[in-house]
């Protein structure tokens, strides 16, 4: 296994389209890093550059300390699992698994032993004589994984490996991949647009958008400390609520900064006073996760913290919880609550939240401010 390092990797196409605009990051030995982003953000291109299927316009790619820019894919010692699996349709499972070993000139008996080992690991022993078209989606997926495993490569590259599976299978294979990663202590780079996969699998997540890296962090920090508006909006479901306004510094006591939303003013909490001191009058966006918003029950003693009043617009029960959409002023806020039975659409509701759960971003640059 080996570490992977990217330095200033750029991929620009003729005609000026830039797929990757300067990617610099490292993947440690035995680490599983997820490249996360919406489709067309350049994450797959980046993976293909590491695999050697695309040539970067600029920058260097290192695998195990060696610059591999000019190496052919087969000389990089990387294995890739394709979104479409790309199994050789005319070969049996056994031949598919053993193909790379056969090309390497590994003897028939050694090949068979290694194939059997991997087949056992992936529960494919009964399928060795079958053709890919005779397999179910999940089995094909496992063969694709197995084909990568057989080679014992330095680095595993996985390009949306679960996106062709149905939801039930997906979580099963996800667990499988996590298990394999732990067991093999393999270096893995995993591309997905699915944040659940990213959060559950990644030791670190590289969030990308428009060819640029937005944030590189552990899953929890990406969720709790999104570096900018894009990451804040992309990670989390339902996504973060945003309230745009102008920052007001209170001169008199209490010196709590406030956000003027137009229809109301939002207290941002005293602890932020110092970090926001220089930003008076700046346009900011306040972000609140749906689970950080709470309903104020009528009749209950008034809670501390800011209040927002509005009307209930939509109730979406999903079983174990309910999503409520509330119109406050000119914005809609979504909150996540335990199952609600008593509320009706149109009811007036009051929301509250803890000010330390607020995320603040500069409205123009999108960057996080005043942490």
């Amino acid at each position, binding site marked *: 296994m080996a570490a992977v390092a990217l330095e200033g990797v750029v991929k620009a196409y003729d005609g000026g389209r830039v797929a990757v605009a300067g990617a610099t990051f490292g993947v440690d030995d035995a680490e599983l890093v997820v490249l996360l982003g919406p489709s067309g953000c350049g994450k797959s291109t980046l993976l293909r550059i590491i695999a050697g*299927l695309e040539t970067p316009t600029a920058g260097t790619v290192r695998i195990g300390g060696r610059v591999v820019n000019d190496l052919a894919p087969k000389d990089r010692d990387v294995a890739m699992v394709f979104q479409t699996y790309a199994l050789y349709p005319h070969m049996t499972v056994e031949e598919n698994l053993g193909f790379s070993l056969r090309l390497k000139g590994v003897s028939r008996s050694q090949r068979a032993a290694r194939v059997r080992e991997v087949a056992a690991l992936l529960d494919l022993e009964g399928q060795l004589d079958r053709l890919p078209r005779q397999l179910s989606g999940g089995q094909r997926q496992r063969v694709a994984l197995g084909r990568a495993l057989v080679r014992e490569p330095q680095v595993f590259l996985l390009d949306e490996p679960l996106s062709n599976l149905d939801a039930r299978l997906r979580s099963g294979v996800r667990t499988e991949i996590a298990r394999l990663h732990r067991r093999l202590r393999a270096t893995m780079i995993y591309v997905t647009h699915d944040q659940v996969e990213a959060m559950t699998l990644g030791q670190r997540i590289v969030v990308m958008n428009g060819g640029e890296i937005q944030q590189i962090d552990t899953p929890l920090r990406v969720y709790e400390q999104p570096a900018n508006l894009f990451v804040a909006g992309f990670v989390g479901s339902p996504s973060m609520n945003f309230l745009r306004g102008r920052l007001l510094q209170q001169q008199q006591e209490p010196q709590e900064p406030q956000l003027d939303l137009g229809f109301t003013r939002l207290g941002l909490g005293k602890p932020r006073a110092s970090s926001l001191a220089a930003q008076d009058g700046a346009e900011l966006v306040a972000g609140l996760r749906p689970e950080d918003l709470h309903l104020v029950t009528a009749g209950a003693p008034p809670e501390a913290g800011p209040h927002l009043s509005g009307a209930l617009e939509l109730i979406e029960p999903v079983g174990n919880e309910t999503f409520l959409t509330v119109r406050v002023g000119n914005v809609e806020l979504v909150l996540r609550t335990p199952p609600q039975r008593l509320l009706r659409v149109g009811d007036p509701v009051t929301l509250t939240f803890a000010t330390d759960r607020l995320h603040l971003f500069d409205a123009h640059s999108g960057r996080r401010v005043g942490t």
Partner: protein
Amino acid sequence: MRASHFGWLFAAPALVIIGVFFFLPVLGALALSLTDFDLYALADLRNLRFVGLDNYWQLMHSREFWGALGNTCYFVALGVPLSVLASLLTALLVSSRLTRWPALFRTALFAPVVTTVVAVALVWRYLLHTRYGLLNWALGALGVHPLDWLGDPHWAMPAIVLFAVWKNFGYNMIILIAALQAVPEELHEAARLDGASFWQEFVRVTLPALRPTLLLVAILTAAGYFQLFAEPFVMTQGGPLQSTMSVVYLMYDQAFKWWNLGTASAVAFLLFLIVLVVTALEMRFLRRIEAP
């Protein structure tokens, strides 16, 4: 009951047309092949006699027929593999990512298919000319003595094969280009990551993916090549020494040179049976390969 009646009604126009213009003539030819229909019968139908399988019997014992069949098989055996190979090579070249202006080449290479045999055969006669031909000039540059392509019984058929291959490869090329495009790009990428060289990738990934199409193309080409006629008709008139006399040419001679329409119909039917058997065998082979 009623629905099926309507079904027949809808199918009727097509069935009538197929019946009148396809099955009727075939049946007519079959009937004709059992008679001694000739110039005398043409003059007065009372001269027509039913001879049973006599025409077939005669053909089975005619050196001309076996010679023509041998020539045709020679043409098919040499022409089909060469045609398919030429189609495959050009399809690969045109589909290559390194090829500039693929549309231009695709069109240019397809052009021979849409030209008329007679017109281009005249050009080829000139290309194959013993003294002034381009082919002999090129061979001369390599130090090979000029060949009398169309005048030498050993070389006349190969010359015709060369011409037919040139004339026909473009059609199969288009089919194979489509088949090549149907091979997912990821398969090639997976092979390259698995460590396949260019040649290994071709033999182990591209070729197996093309196999059903290659066989289909071979079957269609063979069925067409068994009906060899226009090329020798224009270029060699079946000569020299009957070396380019094909089965269909023999049929043509019997019918429109000697007016032995009965014999000609028998030739046509025998060829039909041969093509049927060969195609059936090929189809069987194809099916076995496609569904193991």
